[in-house]
């Protein structure tokens, strides 16, 4: 199952789930975590709104297409089929 799936897929997907479930668990164990101030604003705006919702996913989707294009470049250099 999932034979041939690029390693970057597992790394990217793992990063996304790690981030989400780490902060979900922390929120359900540390009272008031979403409202604790980090850099002067409630923490949830950073780990959920900014990073969880947007930045991490942009990074992951960039890595996914970038690493695949690198793999295809190598294949082309070797004269193989993509």
């Amino acid at each position, binding site marked *: 199952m999932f034979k041939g799936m690029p390693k970057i897929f597992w790394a990217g997907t793992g990063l996304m789930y790690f981030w989400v479930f780490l902060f*979900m668990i922390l929120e359900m164990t540390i*009272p008031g975590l979403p409202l604790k101030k980090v850099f*002067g604003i409630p923490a949830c705006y950073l780990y959920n709104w900014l990073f969880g919702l947007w930045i991490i*996913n942009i990074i992951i989707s960039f890595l996914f297409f970038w690493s695949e294009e690198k793999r*295809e470049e190598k294949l082309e250099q070797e004269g193989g089929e993509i």
Partner: protein
Amino acid sequence: MSVNPIVLLGALAYFLVIFYIGWTSRKASLDAADFYVAGRKVGPFVNGSALAATYFSPASFLGLPAFIFLLGYPFWWALVGIIGGMPIATLLTAAPLRKYEPTSFTDYYADRYETRWMRLWAAIPTVIGGFAYVILSIVGTALFLLCILKVNFTISVILASVIIFAYIYYGGMVATTLSTAFQGIAMTVGSLVATVYVISHYGGLNGLTDAVLANSPTFFNMPYVSEKASHPLMSTWTGVVGFFFVWHFGFSAMPYTVVRFFTTQDIKSARRSVFWAVLIGGAMYGGLVIIGTGTKVLIEQLHPLMQTEGINSAMGLLKHMKTAYGVAGASVTDYSMIAANEALNSPFLLAVIAAGGLAIAMATAAGWTMVLNVVLGRDLIGKVFGSTWPEKKPVQCTRCMTIFIIFVCALLSFKPPALVLDISGAAFIVILCSVGPPLILGLWWERGTTIAAALNIIVMTACSTGSWMYAKYHLGSYHWFFLSDPANKLSTPHQFYWVFIGFFFYIGVSLITPRNSEEAIQKYVRDLRPRQPKSEQI
């Protein structure tokens, strides 16, 4: 409240752009390949923007802020789940499906599982989900038309149906891809402009948070660490995690997004288009989080109708809209997002939001109607039942299907069965648990079998729809576990667990049933995998 000329002008400007795009691209939809898959010549940015606009529907634009308004901060995680599921599609389905180059969503099922009847099985949940989505798109368009024109909801639904019908009837995939790409930008701009208004009104994120807490002290409460949950559905981890997963895998397996991978120039564009969709869609979702968070406090502090006609709460205002404009069913709560923007008392903002809302609703209606057109016409009438009509006259056949779909959905939109986000959630779970495993595991697992695929679609469609309706009528909400004791209910949003059960069911049945032919496995599994450079092979 009367019609504001600036809001009306904003909507007219939006329609002018859409009709301009439709007019200039009309000659591009003359043959079947162009009509169905845009001639496979769409670049990554245009396709990414179109992907975002198609995938995100009024369920996002109206429904997500409404659910944040109802359920509080824990629902933010549902939005993280939706965007977080998008990058996964890049390598899981977008790349292999683009490599395979199908025309329709059901092509893969018929080819991989070696029977044309798989088209019929795959069509069942797709048609259920598709009709649900066209209905919610008509309702969404109608709510925005109500906001612009201040006319009765029934008239808004008729107008919305006519507009959507004309848009798709004369479009096809080329026109809808180009105009949908524009709509992706329009909806994101609308959401971001509203966000700037909300944040600046309260003087920053701290000011907004303080205002929300003063208005709803339990808004940011998470389960187990607060005396009172933000909402009963969010009082256990199953509620928070459940909402995270309801829409999470949709980008990888929902037919209306999967078909957009078929329209790209090449496999490279298919992967890059996901990046653009995440960038554009993520920005819009960031805006929706802020709008949803501020909805209640904005309406109660600033809406022009507050304190008039005995209205003294946000829910009271929505009830007033229901009676004043005849908004039917539960969908009046969906108006909360528009009401929050009305509260900011800026015609410019409302014009941008209305244009963005119309954009997202029309784009989704077009995307789903195109999927249903192809499934009902080309796939079922043509490939399954052997008629040559869809092959000989594809445009005529597709247009007849469009008339049928929009007519049926318009009739069902006059009294929507649920909130738009609830209609969306139900459609997602039915499709993801039934056709999701045979698609994803069919691509990545040689052992997946025809019997497992067919049984999975039939059993999971029945289980998910049955448990969803049972929960609604037995426990009062689709979000409680359908076998719960009414005195001690467990939150399992939209019976989301069926998605995971579907994967295990498919694997289990595959292991005890005969494999597909070596030829099919080679062509539709092994050949679709990415090739590794010799230097990296073990």
